[in-house]
């Protein structure tokens, strides 16, 4: 037993995979033995220096870590308040933070002797990252993607195919990320003997929320050390966009026990919180879906509602259970920004810093745009630039009335 510090926010989940009332293992019996195996194997891997060495080596030489910590001078000047810094995870191989987690999970899969990989994807970023690590290690890969998303994310579909993955368009439900996750779980339950499911965000049944968080925490560990080295102090405010919440928990977790560091998670308010949106903390309530208890967009009967966001990566009606817990205990603040605000922020960063952000971190930038002017100039805001925007130029062009 490790000694639990009752004042720490970094000791969750408990031994049953719960973050307070959230998290857990709400899966069909067929999957339970596998989930328990995965937990045992993850515990062993965590204690194994060889596992960490291989993970660190791949992150450095294959992914390109550490990612830079960047002070954004022109954006700071334009906003006229706090200093704005970015953690540049959009410079990773494959263009987003997703690859950090995929490297960790495929090493676990091979450790468990699994020979086939499946994953779900919404925008295609996690699908591309999964297909990438499968190509790197020579494992067959099946990506489930809603048929609607397949249509609107053709470049990523082609990338996955180039990388050797089979992309299965999912025709059920609204044919988006939630349905892709359902179909991936159906595949998994039928192929538990040889198949490993690389879940793309810090959600799903225990131990996924914990292990995805741990793999993504490289973001926050690097940022904390880089900030101390560059400025001699910690940032005052961390900001990150939240769909399932893996980039945010990866940035936040290493800072949770630093009491001077405030944190802000930014959900997708879509057309507005009174219309279609994907802000499960702001507009949902606790429920059970996809193996965990967390905040969900749902009706009075507990039927799950479809999320909407201009960002396909945030378009999910749930959120990782650790965020649900951090909201309830008040350690992290959560807000939301609309599609239009995210589009404005997207253009602002292009214009002021020469960086084309993905629509997901554009939500974080939109929140920074609101907050920075209200804070003194010696305040430091650190936002996670978790993905680059190449994949989004068609969507943005469409919204700006430009035909490519």
């Amino acid at each position, binding site marked *: 037993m490790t000694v639990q510090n009752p004042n720490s926010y970094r000791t969750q989940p408990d031994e049953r995979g719960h973050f307070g009332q959230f998290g*857990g293992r*709400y899966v069909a*019996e067929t999957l339970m033995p596998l989930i328990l195996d995965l937990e045992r194997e993850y515990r062993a891997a965590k204690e194994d220096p060889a596992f960490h060495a291989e993970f660190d080596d791949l992150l450095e030489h294959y992914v390109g870590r550490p990612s830079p910590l960047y002070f954004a001078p022109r954006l700071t000047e334009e906003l006229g308040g706090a200093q704005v810094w970015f953690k540049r995870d959009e410079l990773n191989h494959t263009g987003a933070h997703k690859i950090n987690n995929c490297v960790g999970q495929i090493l676990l899969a091979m450790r468990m002797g699994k020979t086939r990989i499946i994953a779900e994807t919404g925008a295609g970023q996690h699908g591309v990252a999964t297909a990438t690590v499968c190509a790197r290690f020579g494992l067959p890969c099946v990506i489930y993607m809603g048929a609607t998303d397949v249509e609107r994310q053709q470049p990523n579909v082609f990338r996955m195919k180039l990388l050797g993955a089979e992309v299965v368009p999912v025709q059920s*439900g609204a044919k988006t990320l939630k349905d892709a996750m*359902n179909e991936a779980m*159906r595949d998994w339950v039928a192929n538990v003997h040889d198949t490993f499911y690389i879940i793309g965000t810090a959600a799903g049944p225990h131990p996924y929320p914990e292990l995805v968080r741990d793999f993504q925490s490289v973001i926050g560990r690097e940022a904390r050390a880089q900030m101390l080295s560059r400025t001699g102090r910690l940032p005052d405010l961390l900001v990150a966009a939240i769909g399932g919440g893996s980039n945010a928990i990866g940035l936040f977790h290493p800072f949770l026990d630093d009491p001077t560091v405030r944190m802000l998670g930014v959900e997708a308010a879509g057309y507005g919180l009174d219309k279609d949106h994907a802000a499960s903390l702001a507009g949902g309530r606790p429920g*059970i879906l996809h193996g965990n208890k967390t905040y969900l967009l749902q009706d009075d009967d507990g039927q799950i509602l479809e999320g909407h966001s201009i960002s396909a990566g945030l378009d999910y009606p749930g959120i990782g259970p650790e965020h649900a817990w951090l909201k309830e205990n008040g350690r992290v603040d959560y807000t939301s920004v609309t599609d239009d605000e995210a589009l404005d922020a997207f253009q602002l960063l292009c214009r002021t810093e020469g960086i084309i952000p993905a629509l997901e971190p554009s939500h974080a930038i939109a929140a920074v745009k609101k907050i920075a002017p209200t804070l003194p100039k010696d305040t430091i805001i650190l936002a996670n630039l978790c993905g680059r925007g190449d994949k989004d130029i068609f969507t943005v062009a469409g919204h700006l009335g430009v035909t490519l």
Partner: protein
Amino acid sequence: MSARLSAAFAKGHPALVCFVTAGDPTPAATPAILDALVAGGADVIELGMPFTDPMADGPAIQAANLRALGAGTKTADILAIAADFRARHADVPLVLMGYANPMITRGVDWFADAAAAAGVDGVICVDIPPEEDAEIGPALRSRGLDLIRLATPTTDAARLPAVLDGSSGFLYYVSVAGITGKQSAALTSIEEAVARIKQTAQLPVVVGFGVRTPEQAGPIARVADGVVVGSAIVDLVAAHGADAAEPVRALVAELARAVHTPGSPAA
């Protein structure tokens, strides 16, 4: 165990357990389909609670869930269908089968009270393994409702006692690692699994997933206490809609003949 379920497994022959989705194709059509299950010879009724995200179900039952929700089926309709069934059929056990979220969304105590008041005998919840029993188990058991758990080919001997602890009514053996309605398991593997489970289980063991025809059901009934048929019935509802009752009755009658007299030539 509920008295009705006890009686259903004490008839001197294996039990035929039949599944339909509540509200498919409409809430108004379900009572006649349930009556057809009883008329055909079903011993236990499983009434599916439709859910937007039926992760353990194959295409047939997924589509049934969407048809039911598309027809506006609410939890209140499902409970009313159950209560009306109980008024018409005092002795036929009725089990609700579904996913956790609709069961807990108003608080599990609300759900347990409502199910008990509707005359429901037990509940099967696909995504509540023994590890999360606290979510619904105590509330159901305290109202005399059976929590019916599932065992699968991946439930090994070491894990089986955990699955049985807190289970009552019967044990539902999922004969294939997979989703409903797709592939079927070899009879020898089912026979071995049921024999292994019955060394530990004090409960009746019924076998389901992938059982569609009298030819499949009869031999399984020889090695188990009951057989579940779902997707094949749901397919008839899909094909015949509001007129499904008679074709459903005819299929269930054939299944019942095979299950109730498992040694018969028809099987």
